[in-house]
């Protein structure tokens, strides 16, 4: 079917090496921006999987928040700061929550799926805002991470180490999702979007397939939230659980395109650079610039920035 060679794995490998080297060379502020971008990209990979099945979640900040608050609470109440404990803990919490909510969400499609996912995220937002022990509206600080119990003396070195760790994490996640999308179950994403009836009559449960995809996306968003909390050194409901955080993930998914698992990393970086420069240029109207940019993407690049890359390298666009 697709005669052109798939460059995803070598591309991701080169990207991993380049990103780690770049992380050591760029100024502090650029490193912070790229770290946030890559953390968010993990969540966007999950949305990509749902998007291909025709499902848009406006509530993935729920898992973002669960991951972030898991990290923050483990640090605050149990003194856990090692990424080797924090990331798996965030992964487990978000996966279990995604799996449980998946039983409800797998019954819904289109706007109902989007709004129900939003409703669940706003419940968590409400709980966080109203609960003093969870930091209420202010949230609380997150300590610097350690790696297998080791912590760099220099703050900048620790940030570089965390960025490198995040790159490896992103690489593993992207590879796993890539291989998943190449499997029978992964190919069902497009099939489900096209025709659920036929999938059922071929002998596979659409609800089960959607449940797996939803749980997978929740797990990725949880890890993304944990990484974001460790990057920003703080958690708060407004920037991590509010509907605007979910909207931001959808924005970046559209901007990135869903053609390849590498797209979220590129799209997320473009988004953060755009936001950074828009804010510097027009501090009171940066949202206007970001909104106009999204409109341009929708009108002229409906396949996102990945469609440009796909065109240049002759790869087939998969939307």
């Amino acid at each position, binding site marked *: 079917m697709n005669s052109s060679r798939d460059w995803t794995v070598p591309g991701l490998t080169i990207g991993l090496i380049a990103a780690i080297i770049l992380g050591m060379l760029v100024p502090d502020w650029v490193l912070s921006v790229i770290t946030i971008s890559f953390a968010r990209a993990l969540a966007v990979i999950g949305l990509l999987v749902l998007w291909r099945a025709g499902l848009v979640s406006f509530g993935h900040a729920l898992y973002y928040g669960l991951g972030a608050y898991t990290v923050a609470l483990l640090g605050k109440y149990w003194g856990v700061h090692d990424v080797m404990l924090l990331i798996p803990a965030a992964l487990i919490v978000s996966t279990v929550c995604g799996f449980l909510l998946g039983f409800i969400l797998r019954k819904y499609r289109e706007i109902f799926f989007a709004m129900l996912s939003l409703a669940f995220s706003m419940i968590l937002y409400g709980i966080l805002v109203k609960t003093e022990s969870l930091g209420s509206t202010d949230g609380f600080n997150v300590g610097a991470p350690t790696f297998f119990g080791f912590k760099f003396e220099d703050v900048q070195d620790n940030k570089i180490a965390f960025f490198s760790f995040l790159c490896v994490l992103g690489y593993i996640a992207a590879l796993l999702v890539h291989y998943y999308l190449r499997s029978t179950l992964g190919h069902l994403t497009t099939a489900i979007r096209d025709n659920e009836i036929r999938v059922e*009559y071929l002998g596979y449960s659409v609800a089960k397939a959607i449940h797996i995809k939803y749980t997978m996306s929740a797990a990725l968003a949880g890890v993304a939230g944990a990484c974001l909390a460790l990057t920003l050194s703080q958690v708060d409901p407004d920037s991590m659980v509010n509907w605007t955080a979910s909207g931001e993930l959808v924005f970046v998914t559209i901007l990135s395109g869903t053609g390849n698992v590498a797209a979220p990393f590129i799209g997320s970086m473009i988004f953060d650079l755009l936001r950074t420069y828009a804010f510097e240029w027009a501090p009171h109207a940066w949202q206007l610039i970001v909104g106009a940019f999204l409109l341009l993407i929708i009108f002229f690049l409906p396949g996102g920035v990945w469609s440009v890359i796909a065109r240049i390298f002759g790869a087939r666009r998969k939307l």
Partner: protein
Amino acid sequence: MSDQSGPLLETRDLNKTFGAVTAADNINVTVVPGEIVGIIGANGAGKTTFVNMVTGYLKPTSGTVFLRGQNITALAPRQITKLGMSRSFQVPQVFLTQTAFENLLEAAGIADAMNGISALKPLHRKPLLDKVDAILKRYRIDEYRDQETSTLPQGIRKLLDIAMAMVSDPDVLLLDEPTSGISVEEKFSLMDVVMEALQEEDVTVLFIEHDMEIVERYTTRVLAFYEGRIIADAPPEIALNDPEVREFVIGDHKVGQHQAHGDR
């Protein structure tokens, strides 16, 4: 493949009502392996309701459906497919943004998953690719292999729909109006391809059809529906000449035309 010792498909006292409308009224049918059953009836007679109940799309108000003696009445379509009964649709149910090859590959991957092979295995693996190419040839749609399904002619989509239903090697296949929306000239060539392919695969077939010439040529048995009831269940030469069938299903003027064309 099929259990030759008893009925393959059986319905007992199958009823379906939609409010005050009775779409199926005590349907009792027994189908044995190797039969090719034509289901005829005017619009609204209950043909598609019958097929939908048998394949799990609709749950009957009362009554039971058995496949090889196993009660499948409460099962979902995917479970019925796993047990060996597939179907095609009046409006072909294919994956419109994918090519004909990709449609069949997806079907082949799911069929493998049903047979216990992990659904996490890569879809593009040689046994599946070879199987799909063979199916494309068998249904004579190989020249449309890499064409997106949304751009295919209706007849080719119908063939693809049937081919997809056959990928899992079912024992029973139900076809809902395989020739609807096809030009008169194309109907017989399409049915020749379908029946030739199905004979190769040793499958028992039930198909809904409005064209009596098609029914007469390709079936071994006819079920005639009228107002949710079966008014005739006999070989085509008997059923198509049944007075009730002539009056309520075919219509006298159509019988006249049919006879004027002569037997095909």
